[in-house]
Every structure is written in C-alpha cells, then in structure tokens.
C-alpha cells in the first residue's frame, strides 16, 4: 500500500482531537487535528479494493500510534464519495461532500482564498468563495476527461511513472494540441500524435494543456476565477498541470503542502464545528474498527421491474450498519 504520512505537531495529553476521513474513488485520506488546528497526523493511501478495507487498513495503521489517545477524539467527520458508508462504519458524526470539506479547509489554511481548483481521481470541481463563504461551485458533468485516473491511465500507456509527469512536461519544447472532450477521444488523438512522431515530453505537456483547457472550458464555464487561487486534490501533485493552469490563467497558483489531505482536514473541521454548535458527544466507535469484521453482502430486490441490486454491510454481531443501491429509497439505511 502506497502511503504518505505527515506529522506537523506533537500530540499533547490534554488536547482535544478531531478525526477526518476522506474516502475517494482512488485514494483514502485520514487527518487528525487538534484544537489549534494543527495537523497532528495525516496520511494518504491509494485505495485497493473496497472502501471498507481501505478504511480498516488506515485504522490499523493509526491504532499503533493513537490507541492511547482514543478517548481524546471528540468528533469524527467523513467526506468523499463513500462518506455515508464510512460514517456508518466508524461511527462518524457528520458526512459532508468533498466540495464543502475542501472549501472549509482551504479558507482556513489559505487565508482570503477566492478560488479552489480541485481535481481528484474521478471528478474535478471548482469552488468560489467570498469572505470565507462559498458562493458558487461546479463539478465536471457527464465525462471524466481530465481527472486523475485519466492521467494515470495515460501515464501507464506512455510507460512513465505518474510522479515524473511534471518533469517530462517541463522539458517540452513545442506545444502539441491534443483534442477531445472525452477520455476516449483524447486517447485516440494522443495515439495519433504519437504515431506522427512527437516526443513523449511534448505529448505530456500537450496532455496537461488539454486537460486544463477542458477543465476551464467545461467546469469553470461562466465563472470568474479570482486570485488567490489554490489547487488541491491528487492531481495537484503534478507540476505540469499546475504550470498549465498558470499559463492559461495568467495567475500564480498556490499549492498548499497539504493539498492531498485537504478534504480530510476539512471533514475534521466540519465535525468539530458540528459537535461544538450542537453540543453533543461523538459516536466514534474507536480504533478497533480496524479489527472488526464487516461482510458486504448483496441481493436483488424483486419488488419492481427495476430489480435494483441492494448491497449491505453486516457487522460481526449480525447488525446491518449500511444498506444502499436502491432507486426508490426503501432499503437505504
């Protein structure tokens, strides 16, 4: 399991701790912050298999270090596409969308931020803020061109590790235009350019530009992108994309060092806010969630012609902690 750990502050016996979990389609992120909003611990890991396993792996990892501090955890927030499942799994207090989580974290760590560009594994978003309040946002519609998994796929095809994309892009000397609204079209155009004999460097730089152009023309359509602009999400690791953004926007793009775990940090902050406003206690089950046994099961509902496939998760003691997959809503738990 690829992991990236980060600790910025020492843990104290009297601190209140807040845990945020961001379970996306490609990676799983954890963050623990204290009362002073200092990052005690954060980790990023590529998800393999189900979100349940990813969360459990992460918890096992954390158990070693934080088992003594378990009672200090005051609130748990979840975000990402598997937020409801994760909330049910770990006993979270609040499940919020990535958009809100990213915005909240960024508005704290990048003071005065007006625009957040967030490109993750499966989708890309733009969030606009004014005085720390979200005024507008947009998400990629229909297709997934220009997201992290697309880049991963292309890197694999070109035989270059995704981490080196930025370096390759930097070495490019000419602009190659790669057209296409969809991953499929862009890919065929890229192959075409490759066959015409363009260098890998140029193609990668062209890919970065095409991703950014698509993003700006589709996701950011009709939006005024005001500075300061920050760039978050997994793709922000890619320096080529950042430079392409700077080229197209004519602006400096800020990449905060915690760009990867910003969503998890935001979830922790939201959980803290929720607990403090409502003055309630956390439902957190504890780090031993990593050891518990959860079995995902499925059945086909035959009540109507839709025949939805209902999936549910059973804890070892037989209680069903989550159930989803229906269109009508009668099974959802």
């Amino acid at each position, binding site marked *: 399991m690829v992991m990236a750990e980060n600790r910025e502050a020492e843990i104290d016996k009297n601190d209140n701790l807040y845990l945020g979990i961001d379970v996306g389609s490609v990676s799983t992120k954890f963050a623990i912050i204290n009362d002073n909003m200092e990052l005690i611990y954060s980790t990023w890991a590529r998800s393999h298999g189900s979100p349940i396993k990813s969360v459990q792996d992460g918890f096992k990892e954390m158990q070693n270090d934080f088992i003594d501090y378990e009672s200090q955890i005051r609130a748990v927030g979840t975000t990402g596409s598997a937020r409801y499942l994760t909330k049910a799994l770990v006993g979270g207090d609040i499940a919020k969308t990535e958009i809100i989580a990213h915005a909240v974290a960024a508005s704290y760590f990048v003071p005065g931020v007006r625009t957040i560009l967030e490109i993750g594994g499966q989708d890309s978003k733009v969030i606009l803020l004014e005085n720390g309040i979200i005024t507008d946002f947009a998400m990629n519609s229909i297709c997934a061109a220009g997201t992290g998994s697309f880049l991963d796929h292309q890197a694999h095809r070109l035989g270059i590790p995704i981490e080196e994309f930025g370096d390759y892009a930097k070495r490019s000397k000419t602009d190659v235009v790669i057209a296409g609204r969809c991953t499929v079209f862009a890919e065929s155009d890229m192959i075409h350019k490759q066959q015409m004999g363009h260098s890998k460097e140029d193609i990668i730089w062209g890919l970065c530009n095409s991703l950014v152009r698509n993003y*700006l023309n589709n996701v950011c359509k009709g939006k005024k992108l005001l500075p300061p602009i920050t760039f978050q999400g997994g793709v922000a690791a890619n320096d080529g994309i950042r430079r392409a953004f700077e080229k197209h926007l004519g602006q400096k793009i800020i990449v905060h060092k915690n760009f990867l775990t910003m969503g998890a940090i935001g979830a922790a902050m939201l959980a803290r806010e929720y607990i403090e406003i409502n003055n309630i206690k956390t439902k957190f089950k504890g780090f031993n969630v990593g050891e518990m046994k959860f079995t995902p099961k499925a059945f086909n509902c035959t009540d109507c012609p839709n025949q939805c496939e209902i999936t549910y998760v059973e804890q070892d003691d037989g209680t069903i902690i989550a159930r989803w997959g229906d269109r009508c809503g009668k099974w959802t738990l």
Partner: protein
Amino acid sequence: MKVTFPHMGNCWPAFKVLCTGVGAEVYLPDPNNVKQLDAGLKHSPEWVCFPFKVTLSNFIEALDEGVDNLVMATDCGPCRFGFYYAVQERILRDLGYDFKMYYLPQGDLLDFKWIKLLKALSEDKSLLNYFRIFRTARLFLMKSQLIQTVEKLEGKIRCYEVNKGDTTHTLNKCIQLIDDANTFNELNKLRKRIKNEFDKIEINKRDNNEILKVGLSGEIQVTLDPFVNHDIKRKLGELGCEVHMNLSLYDWIKHKFHVNFHRKYLEYLNKSQKNIGGLQMDIGGEAFWVMGEYIDYAQRGFDGFVHIYPFTCMPEITAKSILTKWYGNKYFDIPPIFFGFDEHSGEAGLITRLESYVDLLKNKKEKKNNGNGRK
C-alpha cells in the same frame, strides 16, 4: 457605419453586397479557423449547437477589430436558431463589448421586415433610398444565385479532375469574381464566365458505371461551411463521388419567398410517405427537406446519401432517426451516412468513416452492375 456578419462558407459575397449596397462599410471576419473558434468555445454554453459557437467566434473577432455593428439572421423557431442573436448579444454584453446588434428576421421574407434592416443599415431616411434597397436586394439575389451555380458545378466536377486541386482553385477564383462584380451587367456576364472557367478544368470522363452519385444534404450552416464540415464535399469528390447538392443560400431564400417549387415537391414526397413515418410538417431546420431529398435521390437511383448536421441538432436528429430506420427496413435502397459536427469531431475518424462508406457504395454498385450482366 462599420458592420460585420458571421461566415457561412462561400456565401459571404452575397451578404457583403447586402451591406455595401446600402452604403455600409463591411468588416469581413477571417474565414472560420481553429484559433478564432477558441474564443467562441470559451464563452458559449457547453451543450449548444455548433453554429452558435462558430458565429459567436466571428463576432468576437470582429469586435476585437473595433467593429460596433453586428448583423445576425434569425428565425421564429422552433429550433435554437431563433435564440442565437439574443443569447449572443447577452454573452457579448456581459463580456463588456459595446455594440449594436441588428437582426434579419427571415421567418417569412414576404413580410418584408428585411427592408427595415436595410433601412437601418443605410442610415438614409430619404424616399429615394428605397430604390437603393431594392437594387441591393436584387444584387444579393443574383450573387447568391451565382454562388449556387458555382457550388453545384464544383460538386459535380471534382471527381473527374485530372490535376488534383484544380476545382478548388476554380471555385475560389469564381467566388472572388462574384465578389468583384457589382453591377447587374457584370453579374450577367459572369454567368457565362463561370461556366467557361469550369470548362477549362482538365477532366477525365469516366464510365458512368464507375462514378458514384452521392446526394449531400443537411443543416444549412454546416452544409455550406467547409470549415465546419471539415470540407466533406471536397473529400467526397476526391474519393470519386459526384456530389449533388440542392441546398444553397439561394435555395433557402427562394423558399422563404414561397417560390421554391423544388422544395414543395420534396414536401409532397415526404407527406406521401405518411405510413412509414414521413414528416407531415416543417419541424425546423432542414429536416423536412432532407427527408424529401433522401426519397428523391432514392427514386432517381443515386448511390449514396450523406446527411450532415450540428451535433445534437434537434430537427436533424429527428430526421436521422427515421432515415436510419428506413434504410434498416429496406424501404429505400440507398444507404445514408450521418455526420454530426462539433468542435470535438476529429479529422481522422471522419476520413476513416468516409472511405469505408465509399468502398461500401462501390461494392454495392459493382454487385448491382454484375447482377444486371453489364460487366
């Protein structure tokens, strides 16, 4: 007063005379190109049809050049075309441009609303002005008719040319000639000249059985603008197809003056096929007549039919659904092929599809000829 209008392929000399004829100065945007299109794409709604984006790019280029009067044609629905000028005006104003938008209502030209536009363009209030307006209108009609002649000849002759590129060269030369001529006399003489010019092209008349006759039809802007349709007419010609196309600006204007009897015939053809889904009324765009043309070409024994339209165009898609099914059910023995164009259409895919389509037609024709025992 400096005015501009968007491009529609080779029709610019006609529109130009419409403005210069009444005394307005014309700024002609560069022919549509990729670079220009960028601005249009950036500011248009994501899912709008392609001609909207192309015409918006034209306007942005002209406005950047300091033109402050825009002319745009409009219709009274039911397709999106009628909204173009209003939404474009809104977008351009929001971008901070200062200009005046003139629109040419062409829902029914017999209501003579177009005179209002020409009057506004001429800024001349005298009664004598009406002479000028009607003279301009006549020049416009003559020029558009000549353009139609040129485009028809171009489609039919290209597949026979010996030296590749001759036809395109002649086409451009003739369009320029049409633009240069500005009196009735000159234009009358041009008629012959154009014929001569095309006769000059060295051709290699082949056996009738070898040449494929293909009908081309579709939405007007896409069909007439070679940039938008990736020059599909030339590509078809170079692949050895005689391209027949009835659609032209002149054809359209005639229809709007209610004197286009060819279109009336096509409407009749369509209505006569009610049982299998022939359209019963004009649903906007060219769908009504595209389907008529398909039946017409099928009855005249053509080999193929190419239908082109902007991606997601509402009327043309209706026609496409029905035509697809018609050929599938073998009501008519002429295979149609469809191309929807937008900024994402790739050149490579288009060529592959066209080449295989032409091969298909060739095979079909050979089989037919052999079956008849001619070969």
